[in-house]
């Protein structure tokens, strides 16, 4: 569950948490674009380091590290696949440039995980729903999305209880070969799915009895408004994009190998 923990929102009061979710999302997109545009180590490393002040400012370093640890497995897979493909397509040799390329591909993935993690760690599901609504996503979809996000920890807890209940009936999850191990999870998955469906039906009834969808136009308790910090972030976003475009077209980026 460590990957989920790395994305789970916790209420902290910090300048990053107070930022407008829409602006934060655009920031994530900007990092995303920059990370896709560059495939050299130096700019990617720069993008990676650039986000650390945000993490520290938001005081979520512990959870953030956990999300990176959760992503480590996929990062290793990406690295190995890159190495393996060059190794087999280039006639069983490994030129240093290609190793560097594999490293930068992995780093690109880490940068993406990093920025999404910061976004989800510092944005409450409610703010996220509001942002979606304000971006003209139909309310039904925004609601479904925020509810899904909110129920992840509930389901994780329920899965733990179910595992305990089945272990108390002699189920050994770690026993047997790969196929047997997968089958061991059936007694956990079925109650989990059944109870999730039951829970969603109950939720639907509870919402309808509170007049969900009674009017076309809903009002909100909180309205999103841009503050000074948000304009600051906007400036940073514009900066990132401008620098990205400038470097991409006018500055040749050296590779580490060529510098050595």
């Amino acid at each position, binding site marked *: 569950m460590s990957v989920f923990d790395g994305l789970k929102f916790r209420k902290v009061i910090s300048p990053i948490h107070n930022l407008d979710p829409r602006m934060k999302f655009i920031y994530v997109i900007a990092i995303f674009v920059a990370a896709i545009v560059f495939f050299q180590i130096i700019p990617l490393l720069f993008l990676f380091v650039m986000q650390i002040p945000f993490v520290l400012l938001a005081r979520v370093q512990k959870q953030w590290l956990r999300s990176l640890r959760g992503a480590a497995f996929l990062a290793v897979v990406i690295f190995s696949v890159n190495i393996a493909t060059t190794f087999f397509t280039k006639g069983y040799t490994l030129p240093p440039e290609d190793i560097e390329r594999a490293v930068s591909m992995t780093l690109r993935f880490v940068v993406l995980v990093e920025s999404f993690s910061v976004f989800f760690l510092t944005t409450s599901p409610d703010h996220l729903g509001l942002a979606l609504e304000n971006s003209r996503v139909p309310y039904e979809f925004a609601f479904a999305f925020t509810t899904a996000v909110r129920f992840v920890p509930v389901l994780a807890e329920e899965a733990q209880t179910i595992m305990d209940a089945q272990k*108390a009936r002699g189920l*050994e999850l770690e026993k047997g070969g790969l196929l047997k191990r997968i089958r061991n999870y059936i*007694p956990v998955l079925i109650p989990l799915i*059944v109870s999730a469906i039951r829970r969603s039906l109950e939720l639907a009834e509870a919402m309808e009895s509170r007049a969900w969808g009674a009017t076309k136009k809903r009002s909100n308790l909180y309205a999103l408004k841009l503050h000074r910090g948000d304009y600051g972030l906007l400036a940073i976003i514009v900066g990132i994009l401008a620098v990205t475009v400038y470097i991409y077209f006018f500055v040749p980026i050296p590779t580490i190998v060529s510098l050595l």
Partner: protein
Amino acid sequence: MIEAENVHYSYPSKVEALKGVSITIKDGEFVAIMGQNGAGKSTFVKHFNGLLKPTVGSVKIDGVETTKSSVAALARNVGFVFQNPDHQLFSETVEEEIAFALKNFGLEPEIIEKRIDWALNLLSLTQYRKTSPFLLSGGERKRVALASVLAWDPKTLILDEPTIGQDHEQKEKLRQFIMQLQTQKKTVVIVTHDVEFVAECNPRVVLMKEGKIVADGEGKEILTDPATLELSSIVLPQIAQVFAKLSDLGLPKDIIDIYEAKAILLKEAWRRGK
């Protein structure tokens, strides 16, 4: 025999749920563990079949440390019925649901067949043998969950909130059933809020508060002591409340049994009538 010594337990989230709990439960005892939500009752009993291992201290089941044994091995002797039956039912039929644990413990098919018959009969579920557990009512599902644990005939039975969502008739059946287990010298531990149910059963009562045991003794003593009960925000059973209000008549206060109450009140009425 269950021996817990100075058990501390902290969840991975660093919440300390148990802060030094010690208890000895002898074979054949009937114990009710009571206390507020979050007092650590469920956390504590999950140590009895090794689902949780103490952070500090030790739990021994029949002399064996739970840290040195797997949950599956401990479960053979300690049956644990969870609060919500929907957290464990998954099979296509009630029969298969009951067979699940027996297969896990590696029993022979003929023995499994016999045990299923026995458990179904015991909890009056025989008519539902081939029914899907998901089609049964809440009370019936709870009985299937109970049957699926009783079927392997564990020496000790732990019931987490067995009376929640049960009507009075089912509660009475459950009480008689626990009494029946007692005659077979089984150890029964229940975790509950249901003070009336505990008063009717009159077991040994253990009160917990904020991860500690605050009282441990006979049900009759603890359930009639308002000061002790208040520690755990539990109200007196109704009969005890009546006798507490009648204390200036010089009647005894430690009454939780309805027949005893009736006898005392009739005697008093008769004495006054004369």
